[in-house]
């Protein structure tokens, strides 16, 4: 071979190659996606409407509870504290404060959950179905022909999705805080960051795994995504603390456990504990303590990344054997 064909294979070269590949693949998501100004409306403001619906319900219930406490009668001159009349003004004030704080915690849970919804939708629609769609436009074969590692391809998609969606999620969060007057108290910001990133990596690891599987399932995958969207909002507790589901006798725990396989559930639970204090809701609505949840998230992240890697390697070989890296052929 001539001088032109001397190509490197050492570790430094490979690391450089794959880092470039990650940056390259994330570029269209970060830069390209923000070229359409309509995203501000669809992805930052529209989620606020979903959040608002729950906020109004929780505020209404809070208002009802307050009304009962404030309603003085002859037998209960200081209103009702639970099922008994309040003993005095001090007890009444205590009960009133509890209602305020529970309502704030619920509204804050919804704002956090609504923010996390953005990531879940991104994983479903822009990660899971991505390779299938890349195949349709003819990019997939060009990616598979390149010397980059396949995980760099998936990683680039994930990094791009995370960065882009974080920008959107932050806008939703800020808007939510201002519009609904939510109060967060963060005692352990480092832990908060750790949980947030572990959740994202586990969530996008799941997306990477789905991406490979969807390639196998083809068109049916779209229906699967549509099917998974709404039920998972519920079973993963995007709009209420998931621990609440566990307390519903019968089907509650089953649905909650199924929902917990989506890393967003455990992640949200931990994020809520870290931003509302673990004593919120009387400390009764959490699934595990934050440290345990972080461990589960890290475990999920590692597991999904490994599964994604093997699923894609398996699918690549299968597609190369069956001639399915392109949908059309000339």
């Amino acid at each position: 071979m001539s001088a032109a064909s001397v190509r490197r294979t050492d570790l430094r070269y490979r690391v450089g190659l794959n880092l470039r590949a990650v940056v390259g693949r994330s570029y269209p998501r970060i830069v390209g996606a923000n070229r359409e100004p309509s995203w501000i409306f669809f992805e930052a403001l529209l989620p606020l409407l979903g959040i608002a619906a729950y906020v109004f319900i929780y505020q209404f219930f809070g208002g009802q509870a307050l009304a009962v406490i404030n309603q003085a009668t002859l037998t209960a001159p200081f209103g009702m504290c639970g099922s008994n009349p309040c003993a005095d003004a001090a007890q009444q004030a205590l009960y009133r404060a509890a209602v305020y704080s529970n309502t704030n915690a619920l509204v804050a849970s919804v704002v956090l959950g609504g923010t996390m919804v953005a990531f879940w939708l991104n994983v479903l629609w822009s990660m899971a179905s991505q390779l299938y769609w890349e195949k349709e436009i003819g990019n997939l074969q060009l990616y598979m022909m390149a010397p980059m590692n396949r995980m760099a391809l998936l990683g680039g998609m994930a990094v791009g999705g995370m960065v882009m969606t974080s920008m959107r999620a932050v806008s939703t969060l800020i808007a939510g805080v201002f519009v609904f007057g939510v109060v967060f108290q963060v005692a352990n910001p480092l832990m908060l960051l750790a949980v947030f990133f572990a959740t994202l990596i586990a969530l996008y690891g799941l997306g990477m795994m789905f991406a490979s599987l969807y390639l196998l399932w083809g068109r049916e995958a779209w229906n699967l995504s549509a099917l998974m969207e709404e039920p998972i909002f519920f079973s993963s507790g995007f709009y209420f603390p998931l621990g609440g589901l566990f307390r519903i006798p019968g089907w509650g725990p089953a649905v909650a456990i199924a929902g917990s396989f989506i890393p967003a559930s455990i992640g949200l639970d931990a994020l809520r504990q870290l931003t509302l204090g673990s004593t919120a809701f009387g400390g009764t609505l959490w699934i595990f303590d934050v440290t345990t949840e972080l461990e589960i998230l890290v475990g999920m992240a590692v597991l999904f990344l490994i599964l994604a890697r093997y699923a894609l390697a398996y699918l690549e070989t299968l597609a190369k054997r069956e001639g399915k890296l392109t949908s059309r052929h000339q």
Partner: protein
Amino acid sequence: MQSPMTYAVETRDLTRIFAGKKKRRFRRKAGSNGSEDSLGPVTALDGVSLGIKEGELFGMLGPNGAGKTTLIKILATLLLPTAGQAFVAGHDVAKDPFPIRQRINMVSGGETSGYGLLTARENIWMFSQFYGVPSKVSKERIDDLMHIFGLWDKRDAKVRMLSTGQRQKMNMIRGFVTDPDILFLDEPTLGLDVNAARVIREYVMNWVRKRAGKTVLLTSHYMAEADQMCDRIAIIDKGRILACDTPANLKRMIRTETTFQLEVDTIRDTTSFVGLRGVKNFSHKDDISKNRSHLTFILEDEGPVAEILSSITSQGAKVHSLQKSEPTLEDVFISMVGRGLD
């Protein structure tokens, strides 16, 4: 495993069979390969043995469905052979794809790759990153190539705003920007206007000729393109290599034969030409819009011309033109398989 010789591309008895599927029947383009094989397995490549030397501009000429794309995909490590072996830059495509991928690139005609939200320049840059080309180097190369291909004005246009020709120029730049040693071009000028096709052909020819160690494998079903561009050409049909030589030598194979082109009123019956003495082979193509048939005869000498003409007129068809022509690669193909290239 290393290939013992210094071929840039080598295949040994390369065979690729696609499992037939019912679904495919509906997707198959009409006339691509008849309909008799649409249910069972398709043998796209049937024992192909080829050696392409470093520095060669090598062409694969054959009709639709001949197996050209299948061969390119195997060489580009995108498809596994069913049997036989293929080596690119000395490496086995099935066992050792990584060093191959570092050295190759591929551009196909009618490609729709890239992202519509990105500009032409950004798209090319993105693909170069998957080969680890440093950003600065990549951007310089892209700018140079955009000037050469006449795409500079469109550098910041979104891909979805580009015409077919501009888009294919962008795809070509994507192929060159990684500075591959071996470039696979699968019908790169498919459906392009004359000018865009000429720019692309000229750049490819210069690229191979002016740089040491660069190899191109080009597939085409335009015989003039293959003739003009290639050092050597393999003629392929139904997955088999029928001949492989320089364009001049291929045409010399039928030098003792005479080619006649006729344009006549549409005729239905061509069986009368079949066993005619002195007719080596012929092809028949109808032009429905003009109500004419084009006939190309490869004759051993001029003897049978009178008989051919009387056979046509006896069907009541008028002969509009009769022309004796220099042999082209298409005539070589017709003399071998009794069909034209398209």
